[in-house]
């Protein structure tokens, strides 16, 4: 089911709508800032989430601070490497386990258990095993996204309409050919959605790991903002982190569009 169909529901909005969309987005964004400002009026809250102006000032300060850019680079690097390892690892593991029913069933409960492990609580172990800094950040990212991808694609695979598989089989597809011409495109939506989720969580994971363990990277600002009670720094760092994932997500969605040529109207 759900695989070939999404397509059809997506209509291309006419060009004139683009301006409208941006306008509405702008309005929503402004509303957010306003709400933020208003909540900040509640006593005590501003010391937790800062104020729009203070945050802006912090951001302005960072723009000219090479150390800040160094931290951005660290976080992005950690997230990227973790993302690559996680994605490739999940795909390889999927390719090894999915085709054989027995293996698939053997590993499945273990994956469910691993998925349930509260990784945040095990941060000290990550630090011990992978050191502070990039090592544990990357490991943490992988731990966050590996199963996310695996489980998502796995579910997608089981929703494929069998008639496509049968058709390709009858045309002579075997093994990798079958994967390439049916399974992968059919779970395309699932792959892309899990990649996008994974990209976002890679950035988040890297930041959280830095927050818990290492001084370098944007997570360090989160930690400092939290511990020293500097809400503007905390929020500014959170926003920068969010923007980075926004960019990662946008890049992937562009990829998705290219991939989804067949789902045209």
């Amino acid at each position: 089911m759900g695989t070939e169909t999404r397509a059809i529901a997506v209509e291309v909005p006419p060009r004139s709508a683009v301006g409208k969309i941006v306008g509405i987005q702008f309005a929503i964004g402004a509303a957010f800032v306003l709400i933020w400002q208003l909540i900040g009026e509640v006593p005590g809250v501003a010391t937790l989430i800062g104020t729009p102006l203070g945050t802006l000032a912090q951001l302005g300060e960072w723009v000219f601070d090479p150390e800040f850019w160094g931290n951005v680079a660290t976080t992005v690097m950690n997230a990227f490497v973790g993302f690559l390892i996680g994605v490739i690892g999940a795909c390889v593991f999927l390719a090894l386990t999915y085709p054989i029913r027995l293996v698939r069933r053997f590993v499945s409960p273990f994956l469910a258990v691993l998925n349930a492990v509260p990784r945040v609580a095990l941060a000290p172990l990550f630090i011990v095993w992978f050191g502070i800094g990039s090592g544990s950040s990357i490991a943490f990212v992988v731990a966050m996204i590996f199963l996310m991808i695996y489980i998502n694609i796995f579910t997608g695979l089981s929703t494929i309409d069998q008639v496509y598989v049968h058709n390709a089989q009858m045309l002579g597809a075997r093994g990798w050919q079958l994967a390439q011409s049916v399974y992968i495109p059919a779970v395309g939506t699932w792959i892309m959605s899990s990649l996008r989720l994974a990209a976002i969580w890679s950035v988040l994971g890297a930041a959280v790991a830095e927050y818990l363990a290492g001084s370098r990277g944007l997570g360090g600002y989160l930690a400092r903002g939290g511990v020293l009670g500097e809400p503007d720094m905390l929020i500014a760092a959170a926003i920068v982190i969010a923007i980075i994932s926004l960019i990662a997500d946008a890049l992937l969605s562009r990829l998705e569009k290219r991939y989804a040529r067949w789902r045209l109207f």
Partner: protein
Amino acid sequence: MTDAIARAETKTVSNSQHPGAPAPAVELIDVSQTFRTKSGPHLAVRDIDLTVNEGEFVSVVGPSGCGKSTILYMVAGLRPPTSGEVHVLGKRVTAQTGPDLDVGFVFQKDAVLPWKTALQNVALGLRYRGASKRSAEADATEWLARVGLAGFGDRYPAQLSGGMRKRVAIAASLVLTPKVLLMDEPFSALDAQTRMIMENDLLSIWEETKQTVIFVTHDLEEAVGLSDRVITMTAGPGTILSDRASGLPRPRDLQEVRFEPAFTRLHEMLWEDLREQVQIASSRASAAGVGDGN
């Protein structure tokens, strides 16, 4: 209750044994298929004995839901039978063997890959067999034209009409010239004229290649016009009701063969064979209520 009678009848009307016939391409020996459903097991077809010889063109007709598609799936190796044996081209088909490279299947449901263009869909089997992209697409282009879709090569299935999609599927199968060709109501989505053209095309291709064809249809005229033998099936759980040779000359022109007395006779016999079955099918279904048919 009526089953016993139906079976007895099957034996008497059966006339499929050609003495000294060529090697069998497809053999079903005492085959049954049971589906597990929520309301218990559902026997879809049972006790099917059927031999199709090499180069034979056999049609299967029968009431909707009698198990025609199920039989093709078993022959294709996609759903091994729950009991009995299926042999294709001398090899036994089991859950392990999977589909044979020499068997082609045109599915009843749209099965072209939505993420490939019409051309890519037709070229697919050739590519699987290791043909270069270039040569595969050249062949595919030719076949697209043959099914009346020249110029639609770069369309995705969602942009084609129902009948066009079906023709893509047919081309994708025929371009491989499989030794055994299974076709499940391939022409039912086509308009009368296109259908006539494609039926003639199929026949002329077949005259050349002498493939073994099992052809499911619900159009009796089509069945008679195309085939050497027509199998009718009883309402589900489906068994073979009759197996009649057509005896019409080859090569045929479909427009003309219609007026042969042998054509009309066979057509009427089949109609008679089936008339009762459809009644049985609906009355049995009503009688059995929810947990149907076994």
